[in-house]
């Protein structure tokens, strides 16, 4: 498979315009990557809505868990998928159907998750798609926090960074 490239400006626009994120496959276990990402993104002001039939009706990090995207009573701009690449295809097809009702504009597949055909269908439905990236890592990279852990952000700039707390 070819490597995926996304412009920094494309990712930055998504992260700035998104207010609510439905996180599919979110774990209740605090030391799982999805739980890490949820907690971090909550701290950055996002409304993160966990979706996982295993925990339906319970709470993760203070938010009610829904069994299915269709059950969420509010609108959300992004669906963040913590599932296998095969499962991501089904989730994507469901999101395309729900897009206008829930006002969803972004499908984001986490690190290691990629389904090119599903992505093509979503893009044909005028949605933005990011695959094989972590929302938390991209947020940290573009808004200056990732370098604190010695990670190469790839950003070269003589401008004072805008701090987003």
């Amino acid at each position: 498979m070819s490597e995926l490239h996304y412009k920094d400006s494309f990712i930055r626009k998504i992260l700035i315009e998104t207010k609510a994120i439905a996180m599919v496959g979110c774990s209740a276990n605090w030391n799982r990557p999805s739980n890490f990402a949820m907690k971090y993104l909550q701290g950055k002001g996002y409304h993160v809505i966990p979706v996982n039939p295993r925990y339906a009706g319970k709470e993760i990090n203070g938010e009610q868990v829904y069994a299915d995207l269709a059950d969420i009573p509010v609108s959300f701009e992004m669906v963040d998928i913590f599932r296998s690449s095969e499962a991501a295809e089904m989730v994507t097809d469901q999101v395309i159907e729900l897009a206008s009702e829930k006002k969803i504009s972004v499908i984001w597949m986490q690190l290691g998750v990629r389904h090119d055909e599903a992505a093509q269908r979503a893009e044909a439905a005028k949605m933005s798609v990011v695959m094989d990236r972590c929302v938390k890592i991209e947020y940290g990279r573009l808004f200056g926090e990732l370098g604190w852990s010695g990670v190469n952000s790839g950003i070269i700039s003589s401008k004072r960074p805008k701090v987003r707390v």
Partner: protein
Amino acid sequence: MSADSKKKQNEAHKFGIETRAIHAGARPDAVTGARNTPIYQTSSYVFDDAEHAADLFNLQTFGFIYSRLTNPTVSVLEERMASLEGGRAAVCAASGHAAQFLTFFTLLGPEDEFIASRNLYGGSITQFGLSFKKLGWTCHFVDPDNPENFRKAITSKTKAIFIEILANPGGIIVDVEPVAAIAKEAGIPLIVDNTMATPYLCQPIAWGADIVLHSTTKFLSGHGTSLGGALIESGKFDWAQNDKFPSMTKPEPAYHGLTFYETFGDFGFSTKARAVALRDFGPCLSPANAFYTITGIESLPVRMERHIANARAIAEFLDSHSAVSWVSYAGLKSSSYYELAQKYLPRGPGSVFTFGVKGGYDSGVKVVEGVELFSHLANIGDTRSLIIHPASTTHRQLSEEQQAKAGAGPDVIRLSIGLESIDDLIYDLDQALSLV
């Protein structure tokens, strides 16, 4: 790929190494606008509240706790090292030796083994061969001239291969590409020490290295002022491809059962090296030393050009000197490593090399004591030109056989050519050699 996807696939402008040596990791300060990187001379950092503190300790959010783990000045150097080497992430340490320890502690368990080139800095041969042994780690040394020697030494316990691509004390280059292929086939990482070459001359990740190590004390810091070390991970090694690396792929008892590779992906190794090895053993880099090193790196490309120009001229001068029996500099056409130098170090094979003085040990001592401009000391990669007799100093702990195999026999003198006027350097060596 759809047309939309193709539009998103842009080839972002790639900044050159001279630009990244100055800018990578170092934007102006977000609050004050300070253009140069401030020295954050602080041990610790306030938490917003108990929840924030818990998130930081759990590694759930990015931020600073205590300068043994992270410090904003050190972070700038770490990101710059990762950028210069074309890696994903870096961790700095108090010295190059400390960076080696962090790397092997993260990789190995008791009874594990690794293979190293026998052509290494003498201190590394001692660290690997003797001190690591006390921790239950076994290093097998092989002659790197034939890459197949690495394959032959691999056993089911082997967890890594370690080489210096441009080997100390000088003149020897390891053919890294076939060694990388052997490591890949065995499912183990190739660790390359790039101290002698610096990322300006060679970027081992481009040739298949998985982890790159540095003593930043040398050419990077560049002025003989500041000790430091760095480990850089490529981000390309698949730690889950076999069951050899449970410390990356299994829940870590020393960190609340966190699984580092799954949670941090392509910067999982450096995160683990920091969160466990650096945390528990403590060889952190001081912010002041990080600052001096950051400042040094800004001029690395221009310094290396001069280091190499001077080294070439000195090597040619010595090659034709009557008191000199041989010169081991891969930039000389007579060197058996000349072709490898052209391939891996096209800008020049560094400025540290050795030569043999006629008359053996006693002559060697006369030369190092006879110089007036060269400094007789145990370091390399300074603005000043340096000279040492390895058999009586850096490689003293080794047996005569080990000394000979490491290229540090009794007649060997090592030079680290600095940035002084070339005529003065030649004048000084010539008068010292006349004493032999």
